[in-house]
């Protein structure tokens, strides 16, 4: 049976839209418990993920294909709004995985949480926007899709209405977000003025012939700034720390693991074309009098500086943090710097490395935030020092968190090592000053080990301020909070287990995933050339 005959290639998007509407419908009908609306969200996301994976050509699922074989990675003529690329599908899978992890974990939230329908509904709406971003091949379509996600996430951050910290975080995020959106659209309009088209495919094809007036540079400049907000690049990151810290931690997990990657994929879409076609263009097609300056290298240098600045500042600030969530937030910013390396280098292997890094980050960072949310629910405080002895008191949670941190630090046999290895070696392969990007990345990785190791030390080698007695009896006021007998809840435990299993499985045997991503990246690069 060919599903494409009645559902078409947009089946995953339709599923998420249906899920959103269903959740809101439930809300109206009075079905509001976390378990019920959550189940709808998990189901819709999981189904959508299944179809995306099938479209990627995963062998046992090919009968579920929704995209006709010839349509994938086809260099379409004309100026379509969307295109099906395998890299886009990879990103759809990444976005859906992040959404799935968050919704699974959120099943363990209190059953009578009054915001549950709003939370799950908005989550799916945001995911829908993300899927559309992954399909976009038109500048305006792309920016509008980003807006869909952004508005949903502003609301997600504030969904607990009565928490003033969340409201404050949402307000900050909204104001800075609005500013960035304005800048993005301004940049897009400048580009339209220069190219007479908003189709990214058309720009990639014919943009080289149009030359590079300063107008183009201005357009790309505004776009960099606008998207840097979304991707949390330094110095456009400041909102992110407050938002990550202030938002309900499950929402933070979604912001860090999912919606932030939207910005990075937008970077892929928008900036890869100039970087690539300049490489192919004959010298001399330049707006500058010398005739030797081309758009691509200029953008590459700019993105490289942003990448190095982002990872360095993110890491240094992470070193100084005393609170777990803020440390993870800064770590997340520095990871965005690594990912940007892939775009600055702009070759297929580098793109594959960045994509793998983004893929890995979903499990490491989303998983870590979800775990923090669960541990915080036990009454453990926000400081890193509040985690003293947790590794021995809760061995499974300790091992899971340790694996996530080790993977973030890039220790071999975890996915974090493979992704960094592929990314940095691609930068070295590209030679030129890109080698220094790899060096900066390596130095930063070394730096980051310090603050990850500190958490491990606190978890495993430091006793809680006062030893909890085995019976859990509280003797005095100085006792650390006694951990409740229950675990994380089934949903959250499943999500964390899934993340840990993927961290280790892909770390030990990365070739299937890596091969798929490498192939997708090569297709993508060829599409633009």
């Amino acid at each position: 049976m060919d599903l494409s005959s009645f559902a078409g290639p947009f089946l995953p998007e339709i599923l998420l839209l249906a899920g959103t509407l269903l959740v809101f419908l439930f809300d109206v009908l009075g079905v509001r418990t976390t378990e019920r609306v959550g189940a709808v969200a998990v189901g819709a996301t999981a189904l959508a993920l299944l179809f995306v994976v099938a479209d990627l050509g995963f062998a046992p699922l090919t009968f579920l294909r929704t995209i006709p074989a010839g349509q994938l990675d086809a260099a379409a003529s004309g100026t379509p709004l969307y295109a099906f690329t395998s890299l886009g599908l990879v990103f759809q899978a990444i976005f859906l995985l992040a959404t799935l992890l968050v919704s699974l974990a959120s099943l363990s939230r209190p059953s009578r949480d009054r915001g549950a329908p709003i939370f799950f509904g908005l989550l799916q709406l945001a995911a829908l926007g993300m899927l559309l971003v992954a399909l976009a091949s038109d500048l305006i379509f792309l920016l509008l899709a980003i807006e869909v996600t952004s508005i949903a996430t502003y609301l997600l951050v504030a969904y607990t209405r009565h928490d003033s910290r969340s409201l404050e975080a949402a307000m900050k995020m909204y104001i800075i977000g609005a500013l960035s959106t304005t800048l993005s659209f301004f940049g897009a309009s400048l580009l339209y003025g220069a190219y007479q088209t908003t189709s990214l495919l058309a720009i990639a094809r014919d943009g080289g012939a149009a030359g590079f007036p300063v107008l183009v540079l201005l357009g790309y400049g505004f776009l960099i700034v606008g998207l840097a907000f979304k991707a949390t690049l330094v110095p456009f990151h400041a909102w992110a720390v407050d938002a990550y810290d202030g938002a309900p931690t499950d929402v933070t997990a979604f912001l860090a693991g999912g919606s932030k990657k939207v910005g990075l994929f937008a970077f892929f879409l928008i900036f890869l074309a100039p970087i690539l076609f300049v490489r192919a263009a004959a010298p001399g097609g330049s707006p500058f009098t010398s005739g030797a300056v081309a758009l691509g290298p200029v953008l590459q240098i700019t993105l490289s500086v942003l990448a190095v600045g982002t990872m360095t500042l993110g890491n240094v600030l992470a070193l100084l943090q005393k609170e777990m969530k803020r440390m993870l937030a800064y770590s997340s910013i520095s990871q965005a710097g690594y990912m940007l390396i892939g775009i600055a280098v702009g070759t297929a292997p580098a793109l594959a490395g960045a994509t793998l890094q983004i893929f890995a980050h979903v499990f490491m960072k989303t998983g870590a935030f979800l775990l923090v949310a669960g541990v915080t629910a036990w009454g453990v405080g926000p400081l890193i020092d509040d985690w003293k002895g947790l590794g021995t008191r809760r061995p499974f949670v300790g091992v899971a968190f340790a694996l996530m941190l080790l993977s973030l630090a890039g220790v071999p046999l975890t996915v974090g090592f493979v992704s960094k290895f592929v990314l940095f070696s691609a930068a070295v392969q590209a030679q030129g000053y890109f080698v220094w990007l790899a060096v900066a990345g390596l130095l930063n990785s070394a730096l980051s080990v310090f603050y990850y190791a500190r958490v491990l030390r606190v978890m495993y080698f430091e006793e809680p301020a006062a030893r909890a007695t085995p019976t859990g009896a509280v003797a005095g006021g100085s006792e650390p909070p006694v951990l409740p007998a229950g675990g994380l809840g089934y949903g959250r435990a499943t999500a964390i287990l899934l993340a840990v299993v993927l961290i280790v499985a892909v770390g030990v045997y990365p070739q299937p995933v890596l091969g798929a991503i490498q192939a997708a990246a090569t297709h993508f690069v060829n599409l633009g050339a």
Partner: protein
Amino acid sequence: MVLSFAVVGLAGPRLKRLEYGGWVAVGFAGAALVVGALIAAGEMLNPGQYTNAQYTWFQLPAAPGVFPHGFELVAGTLVDPISALMLLVVTVVGFVVMLYSIDYMHHDRGLARYYAELSLFLAAMTGLVIANNLFEFFVFWELVGVCSYFLIGFYYEKPSASSAAKEAFLVTRVGDVMFLLGIFLYFYNYAVLGPANGWAANGFVFVNGNQPFLAGVMGGNSTLLTVAGIMILGGAAGKSAQFPLHVWLPDAMEGPTTVSALIHAATMVAAGVYLLAVTSLFLGFTATDQLLIVAVGGFTTFFAATMAVVHPDIKRVIAYSTISQLGYMVLAIGAGFAMVGLFHLFTHAFFKALLFLAAGSVIHAVGTQDLFKMGGLRKPMRLTAAAFAIGGLALSGIPPFAGFWSKDDILAAVYSQLGSHPAYWPFFLLAFAAVFLTAYYIFRAWFLAFSGDGPRDPTLAPAHEGSWVMQVPLIVLSALAVGSGLLIFWPNFQTLLLSGAGAAGIPPVYGPTDLLLSGASVALGVAGIGLAWTLWGNGKVYALSETSVAQPIRRLLLNRYYFKVGYDWIGARGVYSVARAADFVDQFVIDGTVHGFERMFAALSERLRRIQSGFVSDYAAYVVAGLIAVFVLLLLVAPYLVSMAGGG
């Protein structure tokens, strides 16, 4: 099997109520022994098999000028003659030590930690042995190093134990860095400089087909290869405690005796030798490297033996002996006889583990490690005395004990090369002389501990044998200390050793053919035992150590030729001052900056506290500042850089 160990490592801590996880660990070690024995038996009954199983870990596409042939990193297992031998050693000694621990460690705290770490060690060690390429090898190499660090520092409340653990970690780390550099150099030579071939693409897999890549055959840059070989030697020297990185091993005796037996006698310290053997068989060393390896091995053999001669601590005597014996193996590998070296590794593992466990039995019984406090233990501890004697005879190279066959092979093998490599002469003589010292120091220890009428220190607890779990390992290892050497007469075993040597012109194993040489070494061994008996027999304590002439020598030896003092001095003056500087920077510059920022932000937030949107406008200001910065970059800096690069 490796996986099952990993499971113990993770699950062990949670088995506290199940005999502290000890019996579980023993069970898994037993299972591993069965698997290991089956693999080894398969290899021995059908020698010369190379069973390689691997999958692609990940691959990087070829890039012109950088990786001309691309690069494929694989992970896999290889069972070949040498890994089968090592696997047998690791699983047998591992199981025996695990069993012995049940009683020996019974009174200690933190047993779950102990068994978990020991299981993890065994897992890593078996992984190292069957790894099929250098990268994988390195990962397990680091893992065993970490386990060794944890286990040396097992009694972490004792300052000497935790400082010994740190020392071992730091000293072997020097070797590890060299090893890694060596891998990079080989990689660079073969994968980047190398001619177009399929080899670089499969990442240093140790399969027979790689032998054309032996140095000199494949070409490449010979200077680079020599340096790479030296780096590998450095790595091996760190792990196997060879001169000048030998200092950590005696101090590592701060760990439990079981750990000393398993890690610091039979298995982990042998990993360095194993690395040399593997490198020699699959990559090959240049002639310069070979001479250097011979020099390090030969010198260490003698040098370590001298330090064992005067030491009063029973475990440290055996530790120096380990360094010395590892020197023999290194010597053999340097002379081009990797399989002969591995044969000695094989026999040595059993008789050295036996010596350690016998010593452990003594320590368990009397509660001290000081030989001069012991005495007369022969009567209450007949089995232990016999076991220690068998181990001692094997170590001294007295036929028919195991050490004779393997040590004699080494001497004969090196002797055969003296004609073509006269530079080997001094090191051969040192190794030969060490035979005498070896026999002397080990029997000095035996006589001090076991002969005489009773303990010299009357406050010692009355001695007794351990329970059956401590006796069985002694009996098993005693049998192996006799039998493992005799295996050389089994044709299949000979074939095994020969097939390990491969087809690259490495001469065959020597039996005890050169009677004169054998006779001389046995005579030296007997003389050593005789001297020990004369000086220390029947509970005598020889007074030479008190005379003024010998005192400076004794002090020199007890102070280990002042090597440790020297390293400490370098450490104190060099590293410590760097650390002090770093600390200063940390305290004043970084902390100062942090506190400065803290104060700044505190002041700032105090001012902005009442205006909620103050922060957001700050962030908006960042955005605007960033916008300006991006435009400066885009419009001025980057075009300038690009035009410089393009125009220049």
